[in-house]
């Protein structure tokens, strides 16, 4: 019973952070049809930036409130900077090219950002544990649950709700939805698609950096964290259906629970359980769990 509860909680926490990252990825794909490999770099910059600032905030006596404010501000700053740089500086010149070519362009940008990280922050490990340790834990039976993890679930929920609300309840959201469904028609009706693209990309980048920021206190930030994230969040997005918000949620939960169950019950398969779930889902529903099948060109 306790194990079942542990699997539920661990799965939920894992799903929470992966959802925040995948949300940005799926939003960008849904609107712009770009599978953005650079998302891993947004994540890494978010993590490094936040870890550095938390280090500054705790340099003296330590100020928890500042740390939490920084964790929300840093992703916005980083997301805006990097998102604008990439979208305005590079991607807009390549719109209209093959989806696969766009993947390669963002892959190349990712490689460049990876070395930029190395030049800025070096190879050192950046710890930023203070906010997590300071929040303490609650006990459930023999289990201790970190309050920081519970906060993560809340933040992920809020991010998901905010995105849903923005897309479904605001004028801006209706415009974006129009672009998702029929780009040409939206343009014909006077929608400034270029601006929709820029804003969407920046919001996606902020979500990627936010994923890194809220993860930074849990992990010591090291070179290469971006690579891991890309593949896992791709799997989540592919499982849920590319471009579907609900799909990202479902994919994240599926991946989170599968991984937690593997660790507790069948540790041998932990290393590839995410890919196995992905292959299985795609084998049964090639377009993912949440997407409509597109019509074939003739």
């Amino acid at each position, binding site marked *: 019973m306790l194990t079942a509860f542990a699997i539920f909680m661990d799965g939920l926490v894992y799903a929470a952070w992966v959802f925040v990252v995948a949300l940005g990825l799926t939003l960008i794909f849904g609107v712009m049809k770009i599978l953005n490999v650079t998302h891993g770099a947004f994540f890494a910059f978010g993590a490094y930036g936040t870890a550095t600032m938390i280090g500054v905030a705790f340099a003296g006596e330590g100020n928890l409130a500042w740390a939490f404010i920084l964790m929300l501000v840093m992703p916005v700053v980083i997301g805006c900077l990097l998102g604008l740089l990439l979208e305005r500086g590079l991607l807009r010149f390549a719109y209209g090219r093959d989806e696969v070519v766009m993947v390669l362009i963002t892959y190349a940008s990712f490689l460049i950002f990876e070395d930029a990280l190395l030049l800025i922050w070096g190879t050192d490990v950046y710890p930023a544990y203070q906010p997590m340790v300071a929040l303490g834990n609650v006990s459930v039976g023999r289990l201790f649950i970190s309050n920081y993890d519970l906060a993560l679930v809340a933040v992920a929920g809020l991010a998901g709700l905010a995105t849903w609300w923005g897309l479904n309840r605001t004028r801006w959201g209706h415009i974006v939805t129009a672009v998702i469904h029929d780009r040409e028609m939206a343009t014909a009706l006077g929608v400034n698609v270029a601006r929709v693209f820029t804003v969407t990309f920046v919001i996606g980048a902020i979500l990627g950096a936010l994923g890194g920021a809220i993860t930074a206190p849990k992990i010591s930030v090291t070179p*290469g964290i971006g690579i891991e994230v890309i593949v896992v969040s791709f799997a989540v997005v592919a499982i849920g259906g590319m471009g579907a918000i609900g799909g990202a949620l479902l994919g994240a939960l599926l991946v989170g629970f599968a991984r937690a169950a593997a660790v507790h019950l069948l540790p041998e398969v932990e290393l590839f359980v995410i890919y196995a779930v992905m292959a299985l889902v795609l084998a049964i529903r090639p377009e993912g769990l949440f997407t409509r099948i597109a019509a074939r060109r003739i």
Partner: protein
Amino acid sequence: MMIGKGALGLILGSAALAAAGLAGPAQAQDSIKVGVVSFLTGAAAGPFGIPGKNAAELVIDAINEGSLPAPYNTPGLGGLQIEPVYVDEAGGTATQVTELRNMVQRQDVEAVVGYISSGSCLAVAPVAEELQVLTVFWVCGTPRIFEENKYKYVFRTAPHATMDNVAAARYVLHKMNDLESYAGINQNYAWGQDSWRDFVLALKTLAPNAEITGDYFPKLFAGEYGSEISALLVSGAQALHSSLWGGDLESFLFQSIARGLPQRMPLVLTSGEPLVGRVGDKIPEGTIIGARGSHADLAPDNALNDWLKTNYEARFGEAISYPAYHMTMAFLGLKAAYDKAAAAAGGTPSKDQVIAAFEHLEFDTPSGAVEMALGNGHQAIAGTAYATFTNENGKPELVDVVRYPASCVQPPDDMTSIEWLEQGMPGAAC
């Protein structure tokens, strides 16, 4: 399309020309080019690669000046000044094999001190043998290198990882001689899997009734250990073995502190020593700390150790950690062999003379005496130590240090590590 015909030849030819230009004129032998291979990029660079490279710079400068403490207070390797060539170990084994050839044949490197990853060492050893280049491995945990093969040109100046885990098992029983249950969390790659296997085999002999209540193998660089910590919390183990290192170790440490795991069971960290310098008083009370040998805070008192610690911390402005000791051991071994061969030859020694001097060599290091005892005199053995972390006296320190002589924690020359462990560690003298 006709132009395309020459493209391949053109590239090959110009590369050969460029290389010829770079090689430069041959010099009279008063210096020796030494390749130094270490992780300069990637996740292993911060914890291992850079401290190792720093130590190499420090020790090479001191060797060239002759400013090391005795018995190393003569300049050069048997009089030859060291010209280092630093190479990044990132990129995988195939890359390392190619780079070794490049170092030897393109840049005239005559000796190589290098390799952290066991995979690199296993891949590089046969090629070093083929190229007949004197190669000293400075880390590489796996015992497989000299147990699966015999080499002439390849040496390893650090003991293999079996020692770390046998000593860890002995130390755990020193702290709790009624150990009933234990668990492990190790990274899911060869070194993590081997570490856990050796620890379990040693405890099967030393505490046959102790039970394993869980063994977890998170992915390398996973960073997230929530599920593993939950499973450990409900496991009821009395001690937790872990060979995690670098960012993974710190991530796991703080996540487990946040969830109260160290109050349930002491952590036994075979590679935990760098934490003392990095996070100090955050380490949970009673954590058992190893340094993969008697290095850094576990090093004995001697003039070499004082020299290394003082100069390293002065030059690089950060606490010294065990990889710097591993690198120092490698260069001191190389210097001891060259000096011995030079003295016997009465001048610059030949490669074969250096190798003959290196085999079965005994030399002093900041970490104590090292003996090239295994693998026909090519694999080092040395003593090791474990200690317990405490903050009770108001400052982070390691107490209850127990030192284990080499013969207590390492197999004899005629047995592989696994055979020795499976037969109950015959002949172990503690």
